[in-house]
């Protein structure tokens, strides 16, 4: 790779590493796995950088690579046996009012825990639409499917998420 390309890739990687890791975390629910996914995606992006750089939007391509990497990872047998449920945060958020901390933590974890019970592709659609704020068309590009599929997956995903929230609030352990 030429020096200029390498510099451009370095700038892109440094600028997007944090946001890619956040998205990966919402996909997989674990910061360590999210870090691995982010690194693996950027590595793949490096291999394809000479093709990526001419595209209009390398960020969209990076998201697509991240999503594929995560879906591939999920299909691996050693990942299938790993079931996670209701992870507690390692440290409290000091920026919030201590009196409402437990309530806020519960609300935060509720959404995240419920999200992990939504099927992977529906979860990806929800994260890309409501966290990344992508349009239906952009999500369709990232997912490699039609806009109609994105809309239907969004509706099903929201339904699954609401059902999981209700069950968690009722204290029922949800099987993922």
């Amino acid at each position: 790779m030429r020096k200029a390309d390498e510099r451009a890739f370095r700038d892109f990687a440094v600028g997007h590493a944090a946001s890619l890791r956040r998205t990966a975390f919402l996909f997989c629910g674990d910061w360590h796995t999210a870090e691995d996914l982010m690194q693996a995606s950027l590595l793949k992006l490096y291999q394809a950088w000479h093709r990526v750089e001419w595209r209009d939007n390398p960020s969209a391509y990076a998201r697509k690579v991240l999503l594929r990497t995560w879906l591939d990872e999920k299909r691996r047998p050693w990942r299938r046996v790993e079931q996670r449920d209701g992870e507690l945060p390692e440290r409290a958020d000091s920026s919030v009012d201590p009196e409402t901390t437990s309530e806020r933590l519960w609300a935060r974890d509720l959404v995240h825990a419920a999200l992990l019970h939504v099927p992977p592709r529906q979860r990806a659609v929800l994260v890309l639409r409501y966290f990344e704020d992508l349009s239906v068309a952009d999500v369709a590009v990232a997912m490699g499917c039609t806009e109609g599929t994105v809309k239907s997956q969004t509706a099903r995903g929201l339904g699954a998420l609401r059902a999981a929230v209700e069950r968690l609030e009722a204290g029922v352990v949800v099987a993922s």
Partner: protein
Amino acid sequence: MSEAELRDGLRAAVRDEPPLDFDADALIQRGQVARKRRRALVAVGVATAVLTGSVVSLPLLSRDAGQVDALTAGVLTTEAAGPSSATTGSAVTPSVTAGAPSAVLAGTDHLAEYAVKRFRQLVPQVSDVRAEFSVNKAKDVEGYVTGVVYFVDREGSSGVTVVLSGPPLAVTRDQFCDSAKCEPSRQQPDGSHLEFATAGGRSNMITRSAAHFRTDGTVVQVNGYNYDPMQGGKIRDAVPVTADQLVSLATDPNLSLGE
């Protein structure tokens, strides 16, 4: 749960983000190592394929030694098969293995010797020039010789590959231009045609090729690369041999399959 609550929930979920310890240089280094490994793997695959072709074809040539005269008649001498035939200063490494007929050995030896000598004249600024030529045979038909001229310049090692083919194995002009971007064909004074093409592959790899479609039906194709075609290594900004140098080799009458 409304869509607004979902947005808030997702943003809240990443609020406890641990500090990011991201080293872009380390990642780039890993990428470079992975790329080198992949290129080395491809080179090993190509070398294995060439070796397998030689191993399969040479016993057949040995059995049908009488049929290879057409390939070697123009280059066979009594001295060529002996150890004293090496030219001064030329590090020639014939690739034909033991057991091959002496006529074939002499033919490929001669081509390798000549290619080294001619390449040194055309590209004087390189060192460690050596060549390997081998006979390939498909479906019991002769008329296909491949060779590599290795060299080292100030940027490292590289090489040019040479393919000599004759009917019925000769490469056609359509086949030559099928996988590369060909420039307009140039007709030569003797009625032969010269094609020149550039092919860009993945990872900025460039191959420049000149092919001389001769009036006797044989084709001499010479390819230059902006990397080492046998060992991979770093990709250069440009191909180390010029178009004129490739054309001079392709049109050289001494680089031929013989009479």
